[in-house]
């Protein structure tokens, strides 16, 4: 069975005919060609596929694309506009929150959702918000610093993404 899916991805409107059983992560990677969103596990274990659906962080590997009708999807590929890195992207870059970078898209999107709902998170808030995202490189210490860096930048007047 097929569905006509209408949604926006990073602000761009899409109307696509997709199989009903297509996962959002496959839709994004294969249909729209946005490969920033990663697949790190066989479903719901790692958080590498985290995207925003209407501002909420979701596992794209556990979401059927067909359930995203009329939704607003955001992925890491769309964050930096005009080639300027966002505060979070700068944080992950400058604080070394990204080593291999494979968990990074999911980490950044989960952090983005956090900062939108809570611009001044405590360390415990950050840990809570990233609890579903595994990183195997950093030990998380510098990921926390990266999010704190971004929160400070945003507080000191930088524009959000």
């Amino acid at each position, binding site marked *: 069975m097929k569905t006509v899916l209408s949604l926006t991805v990073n602000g761009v409107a899409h109307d696509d005919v997709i199989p009903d059983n297509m996962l959002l992560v496959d839709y994004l990677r*294969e249909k729209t060609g946005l490969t920033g969103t*990663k697949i790190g596990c066989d479903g719901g274990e790692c958080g590498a596929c985290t995207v925003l659906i209407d501002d909420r962080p979701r596992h794209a590997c556990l979401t059927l694309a067909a359930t995203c009708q009329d939704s607003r999807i955001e992925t890491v590929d769309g964050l930096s506009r005009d080639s300027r*890195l966002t505060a979070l*992207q700068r944080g992950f870059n400058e604080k070394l929150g990204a*080593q291999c970078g*494979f968990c990074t898209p999911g980490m950044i999107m989960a952090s983005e959702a956090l900062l939108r709902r809570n611009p001044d998170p405590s360390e415990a808030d950050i840990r809570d918000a990233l609890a579903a995202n595994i990183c195997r490189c950093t030990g998380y210490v510098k990921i926390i610093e990266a999010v704190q860096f971004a929160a400070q930048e945003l507080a000191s007047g930088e524009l959000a993404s």
Partner: protein
Amino acid sequence: MNEMTPVQSVGVAKPLVDGPEKTTGKAMFAADFQAAETLVGRILRSPVAHANITAMDTSKAEALPGVHAVVTEADCSDTYGVLPIAMNEWALARGRVRYRGEPVAAVAAVDVATAQRALDLIEVTYEELPAYFSAEEARAEGAVLLHDDKPGNIERDAEFDLGDVDKDMAEADLVREIEVKCSEVCQVQMEPHATFAEYDGARERLTIRPSTQVPFYVHKMLARTMGMAEGHIRVIKPHIGGGFGSRTETLQSDLIAGLLARKARATVKVVLSREETFITHRGRPESHITMKVGMKSDGTITAVDFTVQQRGGAYSGYGIVTILYAGSMIYGLYNISSARFQGLRVLTNTPPCGAFRGHGTVKTRFAFEGLIDDMARELGLDPFAVRRANLLAAPTMTENDLLVNSYGLDQCLDWVEKASDWQARKGKLPANKGMGMACSHYISGASKPKHWTGEPHATIHLRVDWDASITLLTGAAEIGQGSSTVMAQCVAETLGVDMSRINVVSSDSALTPKDNGSYSSRVTYMVGNASIDAAQNLKARLIEAAARKLEIATDDVECLGEVYRGGQQDQGLTFDEVVMEALAGEGTITVKGTFDTIPESWGGRKYRGAAIGGTMAFSYAAQVVEVTVDPYTAEITVDKVWVAHDCGKALNPLAVEGQVQGSVWMGMGQAMSEETGFHEGLPLAANMLDYRVPTIIESPPIEVGIIEAADPHGPFGAKEAGEGSLSGFLPALTNAVADAMGVRACELPLTPDRLLELLEKKARDGGANSDRGAA
């Protein structure tokens, strides 16, 4: 007027040169490549752990519409393996399967569903054999041999007996033993294995992008397996989502992708699931260690006598090297003269083990540091004092002929003792809280490469063209550890120019010089040195050009990085002007730099395999771990870690911190929660929920102290930073638990159920301290 100085790049915290790609989603990992009509590659895996394959029929799969290729062992020209002396794997099983999940056939088809259907149509007949899932079963009298040329299912028995162990043990004031068992653990790098292979049928050429730490080894094994000329294969390393040793040898999936692409004469992508990535394994073996140490009442160690048995899995892989490291690396950290080692690497019907971060050294270190902690307590010595009683003095050679040219362990101890406020706090913490410490070390690359060809250990090319940019061409595999950044720093520092002038091209066999790859922490030391050498050669060329233009002698040219001049009053030439002059009559400049190890670092000859452990430099680390234990659930919380790491010189302090934190934390997973486990060869935890990688919730703050005991041959004095502090965490944790609860944990991971058992046993025994564990 500002006095002009060369730009400093080394010793400065630098974000990674490829950081922006990683934070914007632009970094291309193997699975991200897609070309028109890319076929999906899928692998059929053995459902049984040990069997002869008596028949295989692929005709139905081949006939299925949408299937472009089916490959089996018949498509393979030869075996493969990482050690030239132990290549006993086939990309696809030939005649026999030896573990559950071993690849037996593969298909390339238009989509996943067709590929999956094709796999279901392949008929394989297995004649089952007895299978052995523990080292003991495999070693038992009369066990069927996994490999005909490995009697007793022993991959390797290793041993040495140095000094006079019996005499020195007899002279000790205290002799104690410990027996430890550590579960098998897996790297679980975040990116599942993936390979993107393009075959040019018109020219019979293969271009392949494997997720690997060792593009050169993959290149060689592709040529061997496919029976192709090495020059007809191009290996391009994409971004790599971590390694930790999981892909520090060629994997079947790399070879299968090549085989499928050739047979289909098309582009094929093979992406393994997380479950398949677990089954591919190459992790750290399950190990059983017994160890006896003799100590004087002042803490001086007189002798060490130990045995290590590793369950190696079904094929050789790195096995021989792993078991030799488990022995040889008892040396190099402390001043130990007499030691006796017996090691056994056993072949079993489980996925092959490999070279996990801290290769071979981790479990031996765990046993040793736990045992000497208990002995210190018995002798009334502080854990720091007992370590300090056994320090080395560099430069020196160890009893097994390992070169120790620089040694910062004493400074590491000082730093963590102070940072953790050990003397004031240890023993005075509230109930159920404790502090423990331990030390560790690691090599900066093996001084003898596995493929001994007479070539230098590392080669770097630098290219300078009309735009005055510098292109650094390296075969070294950037896998997230920051190697490209460190090389750019070394070149920029040597030339005194800004790093933004340098573009790094990493690992494309058509462009970059050969490199052995990213493993055994060799890159910073070896490739860093080659980068400096190349930059010095380039600088000499630029100074010649500047001298010509300025009409002065080369010795009179003052190089300030961005400006070359004749003296203070001279306005001089900009870097761009010097480059233009250097290119005149010459064209694009390419210079080379190399690095070779010195013979003193090649390890000894006193026993078979004594070269393993030989390195140009050891890194050193000490750490203190503070824990809280819930006395009812036996759940351990790591409150804080203080770790000092002697990396010789922190070329990039930011990256050193990141590497050290990552190492310590990886040690934590292994110490507390991670284990693979099998039931009749069926993996019990081949996913990231059952295999418990620590999440951000339970991960502690890790404070890093950088110690710089410069190495005389290191690049700007640097040594490795990415492995040495891993192994110390395991004993530091169990020492902290011993401090908190009075029990000695000898089995890892120390999960709540294991700790609860120890606590209950202690309560049953009337609170008597079961310090010595099983021994």
